[in-house]
């Protein structure tokens, strides 16, 4: 029950700490950049030797049957072929995803354990610094698919019109949707009130259908399915420029986007500032379904695992298996994925002061 009031606010102690964190994350960015540069293609024979008789475990942070499970099941047989190891899937659904992350982050130097999760969820958990984990605790191996967020809402809401000043959103967690709702709304100069505590994306969408709220954030894949099954519409895709999969849908950032339309009467400098904010919202709300390994994994083992993962994710066999069970695929190599992580961490650090202010204003 809150409305994020704006940019103004005093520097709290927490905020000062965040500035230190920001400096620390800048150092981390340098480390990650160095790590990504140091990744070398390993010799096939070396990897075959390393994988012989070993077992790779893919940890799914949810109960069986969900989207990540279906991705993992599509990956497993292909990865077995690519690596020569046996691959098993383990479920660790506790702690809102933290249990799986901790399990992978704390794996030993010789343990071939992978986490399948969203980049933004993993990095957000690491950013909060819980459980003595940091950005350096895990390393990304590759991305299976990138899906921007979208606002799915009641038909007839025109976000491009400056007349649309205030909307109510339904969300499961206000904090987790900070970028997708509050940051985007801030860029749009829109008052977005968030009703939080719904029990998942189906529940948040049902709230819109019942007329309790005006819109709900959802991944574009989910939003498209919902729009096909109901009277709701995709109000906006949180992308920079038109998103290729839905070229006609309104988008948040870039020329011709919602922010561009709503800020038409503002001075150029202010418009640019809002566009930057919109880009930040896009970066922080776009979820990439990715694979991670522990940063303590021996470099040779990591390189082999990354190579096997890349072979798997780029293969037709994986694409066919995933698409057959309704999972979209748009893979990314480990190097591109590392670059994505670096960008996301930079965006997180940039948004940290606003996020802290938002958290400080939160009262039950």
């Amino acid at each position: 029950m809150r409305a994020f009031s704006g940019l103004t606010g005093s520097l709290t102690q927490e905020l000062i700490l965040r500035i230190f964190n920001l400096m620390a994350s800048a150092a981390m960015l340098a480390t990650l950049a160095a790590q990504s540069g140091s990744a070398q293609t390993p010799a096939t024979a070396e990897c075959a030797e390393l994988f012989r008789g070993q077992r790779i475990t893919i940890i799914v942070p949810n109960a069986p049957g969900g989207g990540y499970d279906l991705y993992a099941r599509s990956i497993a047989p292909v990865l077995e072929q690519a690596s020569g190891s046996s691959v098993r899937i383990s479920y660790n659904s506790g702690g809102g995803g933290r249990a799986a992350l901790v399990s992978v982050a704390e794996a030993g130097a010789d343990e071939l354990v992978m986490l399948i999760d969203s980049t933004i969820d993993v990095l957000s958990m690491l950013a909060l610094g819980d459980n003595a984990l940091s950005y350096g605790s895990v390393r990304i191996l590759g991305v299976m698919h990138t899906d921007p967020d979208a606002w799915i809402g009641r038909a007839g809401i025109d976000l491009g019109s400056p007349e649309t000043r205030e909307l109510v959103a339904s969300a499961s967690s206000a904090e987790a949707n900070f970028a997708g709702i509050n940051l985007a709304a801030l860029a749009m100069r829109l008052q977005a009130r968030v009703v939080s505590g719904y029990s998942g994306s189906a529940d948040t969408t049902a709230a819109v259908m019942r007329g309790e709220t005006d819109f709900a954030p959802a991944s574009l894949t989910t939003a498209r399915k919902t729009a096909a099954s109901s009277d709701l519409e995709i109000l906006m895709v949180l992308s920079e420029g038109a998103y290729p999969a839905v070229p006609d849908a309104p988008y948040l950032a870039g020329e011709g986007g919602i922010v561009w339309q709503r800020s038409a009467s503002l001075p150029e400098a202010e418009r640019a500032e809002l566009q930057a904010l919109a880009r930040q919202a896009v970066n922080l709300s776009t979820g990439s379904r990715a694979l991670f390994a522990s940063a303590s994994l021996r470099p040779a083992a990591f390189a082999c695992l990354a190579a096997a993962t890349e072979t798997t994710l780029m293969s037709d066999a994986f694409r066919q298996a995933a698409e057959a069970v309704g999972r979209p695929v748009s893979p990314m190599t480990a190097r591109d994925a590392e670059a994505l992580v670096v960008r996301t961490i930079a965006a997180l650090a940039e948004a940290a002061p606003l996020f802290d202010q938002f958290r400080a204003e939160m009262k039950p």
Partner: protein
Amino acid sequence: MGDLISPLGLGIFNVLSWPNILIPVLGTILAMIPSFLPGIGGASVAAVAIAATLTWDPVSVLLLFGALTGGATFMGSITAILFNIPGNASSAAVLLDGYPMARGGRARTAIACAATASALGSVFGVLVLIAILPFVQPLLLQFGPLEKFLLGVWGLSTIIAVPSNSPIRAVAVTLLGLILAMVGADPETSRPRWTFGNFELFDGFNTVAMFLGFFTLAEIISWRRSYEVKAIAPGPEAGDSTRQGVLAVFRHWGLTIRSAVIGTLVGVIPGVGGTVASFVAYGHAVQSAGDRSRFGKGDIRGVIAPEAAVDAKDGGSLLPVLALGLPGSEGGVILLTVLGIHGFVPGTPMLTTDLSFTYTLIFALLLSNILTSLLGVALAPSLARLTRLRIDRVALPMLVASLVTVVQLNGLLVDLYAAVGFGMLGYFFKQFGWPRVPFVIAFVLGGFIESNLNLSLQLFSYGRIAPQERPAAWVIAAIILLSVWWMSRRFSVRAKRPAPSLSEPAFAVPLLAAAGVFALVSLRGGAAYSGYAQLIVWSGVVVLGVIALAGSRSFLRSRETGAPTEPPIIAKAHRLPLLLLGLQPVAVWLLGPPIAIAAMVGVWLSAGSQGRPGRLLIAALVAAATGLAVAKYLDQIAMLRLPRPAFFALLAGIF
């Protein structure tokens, strides 16, 4: 109407025609596997089935997934009745009376009754579903947070009718249930609450872990060489028969139908699970009964109500997915994926152009429910014989099975720690005569009530709820008022003052201390502790304080007047199992589940060996074999990756 009949006929034909009928039969068998192999969850079977059925035609796929959705529900009740182990969370309410019936020599009646109630509930749920299908979309949208909150309050209000020897104890345990249900993230701010830095508790205590602890482990403690319970359950009581069980459902036809209505209603509301349905129905059975003294001790009505409700819910639970494309559960997510893969678009098409496919799914679910019930009735005599096993001999295997099951729920050791904690709590509740049912109802409904209250308040503050426009809320509110009025007229509180005993303060003081710690933590405030949380925890402190104070004064006064000697708080026969169970969390943390469980087995067996070397050797061998089996099971079947035990982590650090 004609438009409806032909898709309806086609749906029935799709299910019953040869060889189509084999598919739901196969699905039913597949759905039953997780009931016997707890390492393989129902969702895992369904997830494997998604990949296996990619090339199947749509009708065959719907037949299989309809059966998978409905098949597993009833089987969970069999283990609840026979062994006090709920096969799943929604079958937990059945054990409240089903297990006492089995221990009292009426296992056959209980199983047959559960199976019949389950089948009738399912038929009722499907009939209602067919009747409301044409106008289901607007109906589904009638149930928002306000209606869900009121539904939860209705369930909670039935606690008034649950038999208790002391109303203040019932209030105290209800508050305790509500407090423990709040552990985890605050529903509005997502900030951790009373997790004491343990991120694994972010999602709160697992409901199945609570049930396994509170009922199963608490019971097993008193089984080892017990002098208080008979080592063998009595032989079948006169009148214990399958026929009696089947007939009982028809004798209580009103209760069966009312419970099925509750189940169907709960099923239709997206996101409300079978656990809520079964406990609301159980509470209703208690409140509507003339003589409620047998509830919790083996009243057959306590078996009928939850069973009829849970299976009636199955049909309704398909609706949010079919009519709106909204999955309210893991099963719903899988079904939505399956529909998408095979080209179905949930929403209006499933209710119009694809209506025959919708009916195919519904009838496959119905057939599966009926098949499992028939199987239950047929197997009742054989299954009932299992209660003839000597409970002091099955205690240890059941203890091991319970601990392993609880670890593999989410792959978290914290679930084992919680189950042991709830086991201790349940044991002392039983020993000191504190009512257990209000605690469980409050625990199950607590989170549901809080989250929906919180959402309703937020929506109200934004002017997004207009109570005058919520007819369903008015209907549920009227039901609550009527049931409270009915209960208050019918059941005058006959508080039986417990005899002065050290047990009253001995139990109330630690509970008060724990509630006090929670209250003090909440005082630190922050976004995690809402007004609701503070109100509940401080109310708990006050009520427990009153009980502790009154109990202490009455005990001291009785001592002055020369009261009879106090029996020991913990019976001698229970001390070893209690100690072994109490040490499990430490041992598991230090050494890991296989070694900790093996050590427990070794001590348990060697304690009865009277130092004879042969027996000690056997104990050591059985312990080692158990440890190996547990390690193999957790690694190879449950495929868990558990954290490295502290002792081995320390060793690794040193060397």
